[in-house]
């Protein structure tokens, strides 16, 4: 059971045409290519595409994907719609958040808040706010403290409904 690199990373170049419609060109590069190298190449490729396309290049992204080769079995009854929400303070005075789908009941208080004294939660908070993990907010600011942690439910999409209903 391990996360395995896909053979390639993806460079996705986004366009917007005169009507406002959006599309993209996807190119592949060997997975072990450094992001900095791909960005340099993306600049050159985008410049060439600009000369060839009537659409405007709206941005591009580089994605490295790993997949689990032998996934374990999920806990019976687990549902991604049940979320554990974690709201964090950042060092520029703003906040950021992430969710954990199918949050386990053992870390919940009766009210639906998450027990911050639980050892697993405490370990998570220590790791995220510590300098050892590199995570930050979307604007790159360091995460400094956990503000809120609670359970919530999102509505199911049509695809998430049971197929045998």
């Amino acid at each position, binding site marked *: 059971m391990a996360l395995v690199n896909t053979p390639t990373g993806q460079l996705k170049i986004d366009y917007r045409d005169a009507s406002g419609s959006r599309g993209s060109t996807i190119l592949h590069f060997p997975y072990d290519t450094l*992001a900095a190298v791909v960005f340099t190449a993306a600049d050159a490729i985008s410049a060439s595409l600009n000369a060839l396309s009537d*659409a405007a290049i709206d941005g591009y992204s580089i*994605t490295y994907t790993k997949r689990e080769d032998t996934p374990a079995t999920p806990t019976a009854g687990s549902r*991604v719609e049940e979320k554990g929400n974690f709201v964090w303070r950042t060092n520029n005075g703003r906040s950021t958040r992430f969710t954990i789908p199918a949050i386990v009941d053992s870390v919940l208080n009766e009210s639906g808040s998450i027990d911050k004294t639980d050892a*697993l939660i405490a370990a998570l908070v220590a790791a995220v706010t510590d300098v050892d*993990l590199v995570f930050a907010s*979307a604007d790159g600011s360091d995460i400094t403290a956990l503000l809120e942690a609670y359970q919530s439910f999102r509505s199911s999409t049509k695809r*998430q409904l049971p197929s045998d209903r």
Partner: protein
Amino acid sequence: MLKPAAIVELVWRDASGSTSATTVFAPSSLAVSAIDASATTLASLLMPLTGCVLVAQRIKYVWVPDEPVVASGNNLLTHTGVLFFSIDGSVSGGLVVIHAIDDSVFVSDGPGAGAVIDLENADISALVSAILDAGMCNPFAVPFLDVSGGYLQSRL
């Protein structure tokens, strides 16, 4: 310009087969290997907190234009040029799509007029060189060797 944070997604699957991601951010100045190491640690901390299983991880760097961009012509996205690239063992082993392609790149005579891409076109040559110099490949990491042809397609 590069956005300040790369997006890290840990993708989970529940007992019903539905998937959802935990999305966090990491400074985009970091190499993939550094972000990957932290993502692995985070995944190990999250696993006991969820009834789901981890099925994938994605690290995504995003570049955005620093000023608004405007389409330079009227051709729509579906007016697409497709360039085919040879790989070891095949004349056409991979392709690259150019959306809203300018009509000046097509040959002007012969049976392919208006539809076959002129590989001698300077802008096409520049793009091909950029792709080959970058070491681009097909989805199975087989490197492109050279452009072998191209023509107009209607696709998104």
